[in-house]
């Protein structure tokens, strides 16, 4: 019996994980159905676009510019060890567009947007506002989840695009101001080196990460426990799940786009 108990625990853990995956998958499918079918709530969608997209621009911009600048410094210092300092524009561009741009924007969105969505919806749940929505003939997923996920699917790729450009600009500013690069040559090398595949992969990653971030916020909020502790757990769980899923999805998408 003692030998079997670890196996039992492993079995229970596997079942728990699979049932959680199933619940999230059903939640995602229902959300997609609510996004595509009427009634639509344009005011809620506009509000979510503003909250998730526009108001995330400062944090995304600051993250990207500092990351691009630091990347330029690191590549220059590392490249100098084998006389390859000249590759700074190319590596900054590829690093930002393929990986750092989407991943850092995704993680910043998980920190800023996922937490906020989860806390808001969980509070609505514990104060019976979700029940009130139902009694007012309004489906909570259609009113709360669909607009937020749709807004994230639209705005996060745009934020990633903006983050890529600002990150490259951060590298450009450091390289031309501190490292002695010629501005025109730096820009030419950046543009020449980037391929359409890099840009498409960046935007697709943004779309997927945005969807994950908003979906996790909504899922954990809707399934929150009672009281302040329930709201706290929902918020923490949503950010953890979103961050891990974003990093895992990034690995899979990088494999899809760049495994030669």
């Amino acid at each position, binding site marked *: 019996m003692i030998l079997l108990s670890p196996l039992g625990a492993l079995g229970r853990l596997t079942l728990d994980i699979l049932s959680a995956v199933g619940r999230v998958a059903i939640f995602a499918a229902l959300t997609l159905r609510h996004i595509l079918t009427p*009634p639509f*709530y344009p005011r809620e969608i506009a509000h979510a676009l503003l909250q998730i997209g526009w108001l995330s621009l400062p944090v995304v911009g600051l993250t990207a510019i500092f990351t691009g600048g630091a990347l330029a410094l690191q590549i220059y210092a590392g490249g100098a060890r084998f006389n390859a300092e000249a590759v700074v524009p190319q590596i900054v561009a590829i690093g930002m567009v393929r990986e750092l741009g989407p991943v850092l924007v995704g993680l910043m969105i998980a920190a800023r947007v996922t937490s906020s969505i989860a806390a808001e919806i969980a*509070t*609505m749940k514990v*104060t*019976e*506002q979700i*029940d*009130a929505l*139902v*009694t*007012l*003939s*309004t489906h909570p997923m259609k009113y709360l989840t669909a607009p937020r996920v749709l807004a994230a699917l639209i705005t996060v790729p745009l934020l990633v695009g903006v983050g890529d450009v600002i990150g490259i600009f951060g590298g450009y500013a450091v390289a031309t101001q501190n490292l002695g690069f010629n501005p025109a040559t730096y820009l030419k090398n950046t543009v020449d080196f980037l391929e359409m595949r890099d840009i498409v992969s960046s935007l697709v990653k943004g779309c997927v990460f945005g969807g994950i971030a908003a979906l996790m916020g909504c899922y954990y909020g809707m399934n929150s426990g009672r009281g302040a502790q329930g709201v706290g757990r929902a918020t923490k769980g949503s950010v953890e799940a979103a961050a891990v899923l974003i990093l895992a999805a990034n690995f899979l998408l990088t494999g899809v786009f760049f495994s030669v």
Partner: protein
Amino acid sequence: MIRLENVHKAFGENRVLRGLTLEVPKGTSMVIIGGSGTGKSVALKCVLGLIAPDQGKIFVDGQDATTGDRDAFLARFGMLFQGGALFDSLPVWQNVAFRLLRGSLKRPAAEAREIAIEKLRRVGLKPDVADRFPAELSGGMQKRVGLARAIAAEPEIIFFDEPTTGLDPIMAGVINDLIREIVVEMGATAMTITHDMTSVRAIADNVAMLHDGVIQWTGPVKEMDHSNDPYLDQFIHGRAEGPIEAVR
């Protein structure tokens, strides 16, 4: 008429409703009383479909509550929640007119606002409250806004969940009077759950006492004091000694 037949509901090991059977005649006010955790809120939420019963049937005007057009079914109801359940992100008038701004009962925004202000006035609030947010209001004002929202679309059936909890006795009296007036004026069927015996006497036509997941006693409010039911007697007089075990 609302009829609950042998309704059972358990949450894990906790069997909250154990065969609840109750009839609320059309146009009357039924108040359900009972100790905390006896399933009064669960019963209301089962009627609205917010919680699915494990067993039993619920009928509204003879129609099974779980079948048919859900939107049309819910459009017949208004509900005042215990904590108000006002939407924090919306100003008061949009909370009151929520149903009138979307869905099958949608009206132009200006008309919906007019109706909201009229309903706010009906519950004793001035029009300047309309543009404030729920967090800026006192508990009593939030209850009134919740009440205005519950009656905004002139429902046939209104549920009140602990309408006076957390209010001072004077404000509780004001809310009780408002509920009674509104229910009589609208000719609505009302179901209220409360612990507050002053509310019971002010609001009820009929009373039902829920204990151990079933209706222990039901009858007209005027018979409540002469029921000879030891459970009801203990509850309405607030005695610690009696057949209902008080958790100490």
